[in-house]
């Protein structure tokens, strides 16, 4: 048997509430708000309380999918990245960089989000970037 | 108002508004109510008729179901208590599951109680019908629960009540097992000299003086008479023992009872040695033997006793469909109250024994009523001691016409024509009655009974050579054990408690278990016999069915969400819920469940649902009020 609590930050919004994820035998089973965290002081909202639920959700994507012949097919990361890059490039070339928009996610880290906006602004050259937790 | 429907079907509700002659229609505007019904969600058919419960009304329902393809039926009429089964059977006959029927009471709840408020009554009837329709749209079809049954009965107790029940059932062709804790059946009757009920005399007032004199010679209470009690009970025992359908287990005690109506299983233990000894060798032998056992108990290791018991007991295990509890009661044994000593101050029971043994010698007797009853701790009236006392007084009078007999009472309970007559006769025969005050009870000292007579306002002293205390019948210890084993309710005095004093006097609230005789409350032998026969017919009404069919309205527990907190188990009045520690859930036995819904209300996680009253249905009904 193995039970541990892992200190982490709520992925839902920009507040950054501290919470512990309960992990029982490598399965995330629950959320406990961190009492001493300066941000939330032992409180969470309804989203924070349920952050553990999506982790093992069977509907969660676990590998890249590309639509082929009208339906999604699992592909390797290389293939997915190549495909995305080529399509982005094509779109930019054809319609200009402002024709591309990026949606970021709260479920990834700040650094990753930073990289995404950097990519959008520097590499693609668009300001069309948004985030689901733009509170 | 909208309903999100869980079942993939389009609800087609038919509503039938009953005029009940003018009972409803006189107050409630049934026409406009019918029109209103058609505006309710899911209602495709609504009609009103003079009497929905009439043959024409029933036919109308059946035709409407067929013609309009109805899958829900709501009848707004009177109390579901009286007519729900009728309407349900109509649905069934028309091919609709009877549990897709809902009844709304607009007679008692609208037209009758709000007869002076027309507008209110109409508004309320619309509300109620709307609620009924809302609930109906969430109803689910259900199948009635069927179970098999064993056409045999267990009778616990071989007194007059138990013997009567056993012989009656065997007479109907049922298999009967009778368990008696004593080596001999017969119960308290074995110890009696005579029965008050045998005292049959023409009413004294209609007799001439010589006739009266001769009737007072009390021939009835001769030695022949005593043998008639013996004869009566022996006859009953013989009937029982010779009947091939009755198996009598004497010296036996119930160890466990499991199961439910139709399928009980009991385990009893029978003390073979005690049985054999008592039945074949004289009484003394048993005494020695039991002393022997006691001695051995004290000296020899426990294992020895166990092996002794093992050798000498027999386990009985049988399946039965019904159980009749006829455990009777035991006379209260005073502990030095009123100077009780067992020789000059004795109980009525001991007096009867002295009649039997022919050891009765006294000339001056005082009887004191209500000894140990109607006092704090034992507040009930034992009901039979007054007639016992008067009867015994008459016996003494018959044996020794010159004897002086005084009866000290608080209230005489001589109910019924014969008993009342016996009291008159006793007064006529010179037996003296004095009333005494509960607060100043008689004092018995050195053969003198002193008491305060509130009628005369003076203290009286009566010297006597025998004082007889009339003690009540009390529930026996064994019946207390049995109540625990069988989880039967007892009242605060310790007697078994029937389901309803007037409507179901011989039933327990648990189905298939019945009570009779003094196990319920002190009873005369006549009453015990009548109750025994009654219980037998109650049991037979169950046992002659081929299968038991039970309403589908029972609770069930969702084992996925149950966490075995036992709230439901604690609250269930019918012991229908058991725990399953392996799965960590509670379970409901649908046969025992009566559908009261206590558990469904108690469950904090809504794991319990009562079929036909599911949360969704009830909430739909409640939400429809607004």
């Amino acid at each position, binding site marked *: 048997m193995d039970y541990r609590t892992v200190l982490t930050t709520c992925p839902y919004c920009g507040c950054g509430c501290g919470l512990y994820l309960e992990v029982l035998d490598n399965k995330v089973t629950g959320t406990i708000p961190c009492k001493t965290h300066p941000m939330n002081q032992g409180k969470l909202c309804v989203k924070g309380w349920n952050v553990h639920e999506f982790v093992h959700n069977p509907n969660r994507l676990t590998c890249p999918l590309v639509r082929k012949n009208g339906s999604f097919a699992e592909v390797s990361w290389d293939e997915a990245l190549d495909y995305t890059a080529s399509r982005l490039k094509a779109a930019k070339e054809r319609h200009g960089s402002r024709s591309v928009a990026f949606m970021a996610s709260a479920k990834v880290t700040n650094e990753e989000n930073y990289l995404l906006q950097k990519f959008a602004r520097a590499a693609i050259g668009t300001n069309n970037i948004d985030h689901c937790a733009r509170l | 108002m909208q309903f999100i429907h869980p079942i993939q079907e389009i609800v087609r509700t038919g509503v039938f508004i009953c005029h009940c002659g003018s009972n409803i229609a006189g107050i409630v505007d049934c026409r406009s109510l019918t029109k209103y019904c058609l505006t309710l969600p899911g209602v495709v058919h609504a009609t009103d008729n003079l009497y929905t419960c009439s043959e024409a009304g029933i036919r109308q329902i059946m035709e409407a179901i067929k013609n309009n393809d109805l899958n829900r039926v709501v009848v707004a009429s009177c109390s579901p208590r009286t007519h729900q089964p009728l309407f349900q059977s109509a649905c069934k006959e028309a091919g609709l599951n009877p549990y897709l029927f809902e009844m709304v009471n607009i007679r008692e709840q609208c037209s009758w109680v709000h007869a002076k408020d027309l507008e209110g009554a109409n508004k309320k009837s619309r509300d109620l019908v709307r609620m009924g329709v809302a609930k109906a749209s969430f109803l689910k079809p259900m199948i009635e629960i069927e179970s098999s049954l064993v056409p045999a009965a267990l009778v616990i107790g071989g007194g007059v009540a138990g013997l009567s029940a056993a012989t009656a059932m065997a007479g109907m062709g049922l298999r009967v097992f009778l368990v008696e804790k004593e080596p001999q059946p017969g119960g308290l009757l074995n110890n009696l000299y005579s029965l008050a009920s045998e005292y049959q005399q023409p009413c004294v007032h209609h007799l001439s003086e010589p006739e009266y004199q001769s009737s007072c010679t009390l021939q009835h209470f001769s030695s022949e008479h005593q043998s008639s009690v013996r004869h009566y009970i022996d006859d009953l025992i013989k009937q029982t023992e010779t009947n091939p359908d009755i198996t009598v287990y004497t010296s036996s005690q119930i160890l466990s009872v499991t199961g439910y109506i139709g399928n009980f299983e009991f385990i009893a233990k029978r003390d073979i040695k005690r049985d054999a000894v008592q039945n074949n060798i004289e009484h003394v032998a048993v005494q020695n033997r039991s002393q022997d056992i006691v001695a051995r108990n004290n000296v020899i290791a426990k294992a020895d006793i166990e092996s002794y018991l093992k050798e000498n007991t027999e386990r009985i295990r049988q399946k039965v469909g019904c159980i009749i509890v006829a455990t009777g009661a035991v006379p209260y044994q005073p502990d030095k109250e009123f100077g009780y000593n067992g020789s000059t101050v004795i109980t009525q029971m001991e007096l009867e024994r002295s009649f039997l043994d022919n050891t009765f010698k006294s000339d001056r007797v005082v009887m004191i009523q209500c000894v140990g009853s109607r006092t704090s701790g034992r507040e009930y009236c034992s009901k039979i001691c007054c007639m016992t006392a008067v009867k015994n007084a008459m016996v003494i009078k018959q044996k020794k016409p010159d004897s002086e007999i005084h009866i000290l009472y608080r209230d005489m309970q001589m109910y019924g024509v014969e008993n009342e007559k016996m009291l008159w006769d006793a007064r006529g025969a010179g037996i003296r009655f004095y009333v005494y005050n509960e607060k100043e009870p008689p004092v018995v000292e050195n053969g003198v009974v002193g008491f305060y007579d509130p009628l005369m306002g003076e203290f009286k002293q009566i010297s006597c050579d025998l004082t007889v205390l009339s003690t009540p019948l009390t529930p026996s210890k064994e019946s207390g054990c049995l109540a625990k084993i069988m989880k039967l*309710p007892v009242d605060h005095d310790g007697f078994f408690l029937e389901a*309803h004093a007037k409507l179901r006097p011989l039933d327990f*609230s648990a189905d298939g278990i019945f009570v009779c005789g003094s196990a319920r409350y002190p009873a005369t032998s006549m009453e015990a016999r009548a109750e025994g026969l009654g219980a037998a017919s109650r049991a037979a009404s169950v046992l002659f069915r081929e299968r038991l069919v039970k309403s589908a309205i029972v609770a069930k527990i969702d084992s996925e969400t149950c966490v075995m907190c036992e709230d439901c188990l604690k*609250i269930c*009045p*019918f012991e229908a819920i058991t725990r399953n520690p392996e799965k960590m859930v509670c379970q409901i036995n649908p046969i025992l469940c*009566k559908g*009261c819904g*206590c558990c469904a209300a108690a469950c904090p996680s809504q794991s319990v649902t009562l079929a036909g009253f599911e949360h969704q249905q009830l909430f739909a009904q409640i939400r429809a009020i607004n």
Partner: protein
Amino acid sequence: MGECHYLEGNYTAQKRINFLKPLINFVGIEKERLHAKWVSSAQASELVNDITNFIDDLREMGPSPLKSKINPDSIKTDRYKP
């Protein structure tokens, strides 16, 4: 009491009532709004009398405070805001 069709049902109900009365009172709902009385089927007049009295009492108390729909905007939130 004790004559419930479901044996101890009315005792259970009484316990709940005993619990709920002070509780709703604590939340500010008049405890008189919850009324329980045990009447047997033979005591019709008593039942009528009791219900009439209860309705009169309710009328006197006026509509339940819960009836006035709570408007979140009307709440003096300034007292509670950090």
